[in-house]
């Protein structure tokens, strides 16, 4: 039912299942303009390798680098995500691919590893993260035991696995990782056409990481049509939401310039409208754009690896049919009956560009409402304690929403689960305190061990129709050891986003909250030296006086003078004084 509410995704799913077995390689691009002059571009690349050739290490479309890692770490299924930015669900609607191809802010990795016991699985997991870290130029090697969890109910394998195999699911996330060009380059290298032909030729780091939101994913799984006829499938996606105005800026002159007064479109009906005051009018027409403008290049032909059928309908555009679109010569346009989709079949070797002229918008492609809105924030003040607040908003007026809520907390954030409380707010805006057991059906909780593992909390929740449920709990912040602080300790510590899974195993929907920044008490890092030096000085002072008391001989002042005059030092001092007096006397005489 949920899938039916996402027509264009359903289309993709149906489309991909059509070409499933016929080809070894398939790629597609879906473009959809979003409100606020944004554009969603969903790239999808999928290639298969037969299980036998994979086992024999004869790689053709499947990347050898990744295949080696999987075989070395005995990984049966792998999911890797690189995400930056925030999906604005209020304006952009529900997430692409139902959020399945999306990850936490930063890097998220989960995999099913074949191992006899937990320890072996973890050892292989470490091997896997180390190798992937090298391959993707990401800090995946920092996924240690404190960042690794074993989710119980939030993730399910998507591939077909033999029942006998002893699979372990491990999940790790790096919320502070900055995803950038150095991750895209190895990502593109995994593609058979290396981003040099086909829709992947549009992917350029400068544009991609200039987007409002972007997510890259790598999924490897085993797909079996029969028990003995299996394929190893790698699916790579890139989803980006580009700000059209921003993307259209020329690369050599990227600084935004103010619009001149004559070109401003103002609402003259406003009382304060004047020469220097302008209330901008919302544009009624949709801005014009073209692929070469927003991506900086055109699609260079087709990646000629699949058969002829798979090359069809590579690029799809989601705009109303009455919208005028100009395309390059040779490409064939096919309009879908739903009234909002058209797809293009490209010429194998000629460049393809797509130009959308500026046009008055009459109809809009309907956007789907998200099934659930979730928000997670840290509340409280001070450096010792804090609180977590998670807000679930069910926009539906009729149906309750059931879902799994999964969060991992670093060990230095110590939650008090007994303080877990729930309040509910109906559409009438009245807040009611209710026992949390009314919403929480099941709880999987694994407490943290200092410096060994983080907290893992999975809740099966149900939010009734037309209501907002707020969960809160308190936590305490641990004080780290001196060497455990990162160089930028005062920036705060990243707390991984929570993952929300709706729906069953067949067609799940995933929602992820934003990552959080937790300020921890940070010491003055020069402290040890100060302490050493200060205490040393105090000890030295004490020692000096005691030692002198014990060792020195005490005489009266006159006796000391006498002793001084006898000693060499005293005689020298006397001579110096006498000499000084003589010089002084001479000079006074001269005067």
């Amino acid at each position, binding site marked *: 039912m949920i899938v039916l509410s996402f027509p264009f995704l359903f289309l993709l799913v149906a489309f991909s299942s059509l070409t499933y077995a016929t080809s070894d390689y398939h790629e597609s691009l879906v473009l959809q303009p979003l409100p606020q002059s944004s554009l969603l571009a969903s790239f999808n690349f999928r290639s298969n390798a037969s299980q036998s050739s994979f086992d024999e*290490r004869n790689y*053709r479309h499947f*990347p050898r*680098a990744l295949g080696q890692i999987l075989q070395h770490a005995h990984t049966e299924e792998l999911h890797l995500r690189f995400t930056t930015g925030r999906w604005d669900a209020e304006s952009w609607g529900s997430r692409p691919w139902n959020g399945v191809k999306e990850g936490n802010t930063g890097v998220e990795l989960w995999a099913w590893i074949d191992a006899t016991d937990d320890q072996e699985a973890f050892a292989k997991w470490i091997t896997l993260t180390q190798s992937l870290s090298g391959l993707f130029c990401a800090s995946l090697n920092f996924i240690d035991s404190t960042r690794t969890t074993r989710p119980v109910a939030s993730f399910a394998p998507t591939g077909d696995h033999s029942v006998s195999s002893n699979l372990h699911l491990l999940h790790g996330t790096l919320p502070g990782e900055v995803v950038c060009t150095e991750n895209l380059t190895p990502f593109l290298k995994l593609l058979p*056409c290396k981003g040099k032909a086909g829709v992947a030729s549009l992917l350029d780091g400068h544009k991609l990481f200039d987007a409002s939101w972007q997510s890259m994913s790598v999924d490897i799984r085993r797909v079996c049509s029969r028990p003995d006829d299996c394929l190893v499938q790698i699916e790579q996606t890139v989803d980006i939401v580009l700000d059209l105005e921003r993307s259209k800026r020329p690369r050599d002159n990227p600084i935004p310039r103010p619009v001149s007064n004559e070109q401003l479109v103002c609402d003259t009906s406003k009382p304060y409208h004047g020469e220097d005051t302008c209330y901008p009018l919302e544009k009624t027409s949709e801005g014009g754009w073209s692929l070469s403008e927003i991506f900086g290049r055109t699609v260079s032909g087709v990646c000629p690896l699949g058969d002829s059928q798979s090359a069809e309908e590579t690029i799809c555009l989601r705009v109303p049919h009455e919208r005028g679109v100009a395309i390059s010569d040779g490409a064939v346009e096919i309009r879908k009956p739903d009234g909002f989709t058209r797809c293009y079949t490209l010429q194998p070797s000629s460049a393809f560009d797509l130009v959308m002229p500026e046009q008055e918008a009459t109809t809009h492609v309907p956007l789907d409402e998200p099934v659930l809105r979730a928000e997670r924030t840290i509340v409280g003040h001070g450096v010792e304690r804090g609180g977590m607040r998670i807000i679930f908003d069910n926009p539906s007026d009729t149906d309750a929403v059931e879902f799994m809520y999964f969060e991992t907390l670093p060990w230095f954030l110590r939650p008090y689960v007994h303080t877990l409380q729930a309040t509910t707010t109906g559409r009438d805006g009245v807040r009611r305190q209710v026992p949390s057991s009314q919403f929480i059906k099941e709880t999987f909780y694994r407490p943290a061990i200092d410096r060994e593992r983080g907290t893992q909390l999975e809740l099966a929740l149900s939010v009734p129709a037309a209501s907002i449920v707020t969960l809160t709990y308190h936590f305490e912040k641990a004080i780290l050891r001196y060497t455990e602080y990162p160089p930028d300790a005062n920036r705060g510590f990243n707390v991984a986003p929570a993952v929300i899974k709706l729906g069953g195993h067949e067609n799940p929907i995933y929602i992820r909250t934003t990552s959080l920044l937790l300020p921890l008490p940070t010491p003055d890092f020069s402290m040890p030296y100060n302490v*050493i*030096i200060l205490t040393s000085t105090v000890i*030295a002072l004490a*020692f000096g006086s005691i030692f002198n008391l014990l060792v020195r001989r005490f005489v009266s002042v006159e006796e000391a003078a006498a002793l001084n005059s006898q000693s060499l030092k005293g005689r020298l001092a006397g001579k110096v004084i006498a000499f000084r007096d003589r010089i002084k006397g001479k000079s006074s005489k001269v005067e």
Partner: protein
Amino acid sequence: MAVREIVTDSSLLPVLNSSAETREQCEKLLAVLDPLNESSDIVLAASREQKQLFAYLARLRGLNRDAIFRVRETKQSTAEARQEIDRLHLQLQNLYYEQRHLTGEIAACESYDHKYLSLPLIPVDEFLSLFPDHQDLDAHELMMTRINHEHAEREKLEQARQELLKRKQALIAENNKRKEDLANLDQDLERFIDHALVMISKNEDLASSQTPSTPANDTMSSKTGARRLPPPETPEAIQTRFKVIAAFWAVIIFLGFPIWWKTTSIYRARLPIQDMVEGADGKACRPVFPLEIRFETPSLPESEAYHLLRTTQHTLDDLNEFSAHHLRLKLSDDHTIASDQDILGQSQSATDRKADITLTVRLLPREDLSTPRSELHPDTTRLDVYYPPSQIPPPSASSPPLSAYIAGELQSLFTEEKAIFAQILSDNNPGGANTNGPSSANNPQQPSSILNSISPQLAENISRRLRRSMKYAETYHLAFSLFTPGSEPSSWDVKTAVEEYISPLLQAFAPISNFTVDTQVQLYATFAPTAPRPEYDEAQAAWTLKKDDLSAFINAAEWPLSPSIGSGPTINFILYVPAPSQSPMVVTENRATSWIIPQWGGVFLLNPPLSTGDHPSNPPHLSQEALRPAFLTFSHQLLTLLGAPATPASLPFRLQTLIRIRAATLLLSASSTMGSLARLTESLPSIPIPANVATSVATTLSHLASACEHLREGRFQAALADARVAEAEAERSFFEKSMVGQAYFPDEHKVAVYLPLLGPIGVPLIVGLLKELKKVVTGLKAKGPRP
């Protein structure tokens, strides 16, 4: 008329008159205008009367104006008069003031009280009695003289007072001087008493007579110093001080330093440095290669065969100039007689302790030959020697031609192997010939000498091959990659090609190393932007790459040739299919299409036939047949990269040689690693040596010894196994992670941090110690000469 009574001014009378006339005229007019009078000429009369009235009114106005002017004039004159009166009045007032002031002044002068009146003069009568001549003077002059007199008297008295004061001062000064003298006398007396007491006590002890002048002298000198020295310290105080300082130093030496030492020292396990260095120098183990060659002489009687064996062995020994590598001939098992060199091998008859058979020589008689002929089997290690039956040596012959022939054949078979060993040994110990000069003088068969004996070309080949070949590893990963700059060919029959051309080779290598094979297809593989482009050569009708540019052929940045995961090196084999626009591609100098990248892998340029048409293109699929030249080249390159010798033709024979080479190189490299480790630990006293390094070293050394033993006895497989373990352990101990300290604080750093403590504590302690030492030394010196 009341008005007339009030107004009497003559100038106003005409006004009154005219106003009266005007009034009359008004009344006249009113009468005319009486409404009762209704005559017709009333208007006329009225106007006439009105005119008259106006005339009157005009006059009246003029008079009024005159009156007003006059009033104004009068007022002005009145004001002027009044001003005059005011001025005069003011003058009068001033005069009054002046008068009053003057009278006041006069009164003040009259009542002025002068100073002279209050002067304490002598009374007038007395004065007059003193000076009677002034009696006739008036009061004023009298007063003046009196005052003058008083003044003179007073001056006189003042002078007297001053003189008295001076006298008083002088007296006080004298007094003080006296007092001081007295005090000094006190001090002198005290000192005198002190000294006298000391002298008395001393004198009493010594019981000697002192001149009485000494205390007097003393008193004199101390009188000039005028200072007092403290009393000498008691021996108890000196002893206490000595004890205090000694206690502090005892704490430092017996508590402080051991704690410091214990907490800052690093664990260094004991290593058998001597053994390690000896191993590296080649003293512990001199690798020798006694190769066992089995003779099969099915057609010869035992004694003849034995004789032949002996003569051949003699010839061989004469020919051989490299003592480390020698051949031992042996009859096959069905003949129980062994050569005299093989006593050792025979005595240890256990099968697992037996030496490997390097080569089997079969002697086969053949009638149709005049001279012996030999043939090496390409797939076994067997050398067939065919000889004419007439050449069977008689037992008396000392050097039959057949033995010479066999010896020569064997010698030539092993020429390259010997050269390789010589190269390895001399590489490993380059200075050996010089340093061991005197000791090895009696041993002319040094590696360098055999190197000199072989042809320079062969030596060059061998050293190049050694440089190219991979380091030994237990597992090699072979990666076959198809690179092409376009999208075609995108598939190849690599599976069958590997099975056909590579797998047999790998099976043959199985006793030495394990292999994994993976393959990949990489499309759109472009050259590096900095790499030189191929150029079109008209003469060769091909795109050519310069030989010098081949090193830049591999685009390491973009081509995914990452090494395999897991232990062991990766050998890459690259099959490059040039773009149709650049096909065919060859190397300029020799039109070659393949080359080896030393210690890395091999490259093959495959130029498949292009499809005909407007746009020539590469075939989308490469069949096994198309891959055949490439994979044959790859198999050859693999052999080279693994370090197998190029001759002779028999592959098993070459593999046997390879086993020996590997065993030797591993042995040497493990020994040299041990030597490096020994030098490292000796040169860096601050690095820790964990216990597992010590165990690794022990394992290495024991395996090295056993490998050496195996070599000496000709069991090369076992030697290789031992050498492998030794090498692995040696590498592990050398690259032990914990030997490189993660957090390294140099001693200077520690001292700098603790300087605020060590400085202020150390300085008084050291100064105190020095003082005490000085005292002890002077005490000893003082004591020394006395007895």
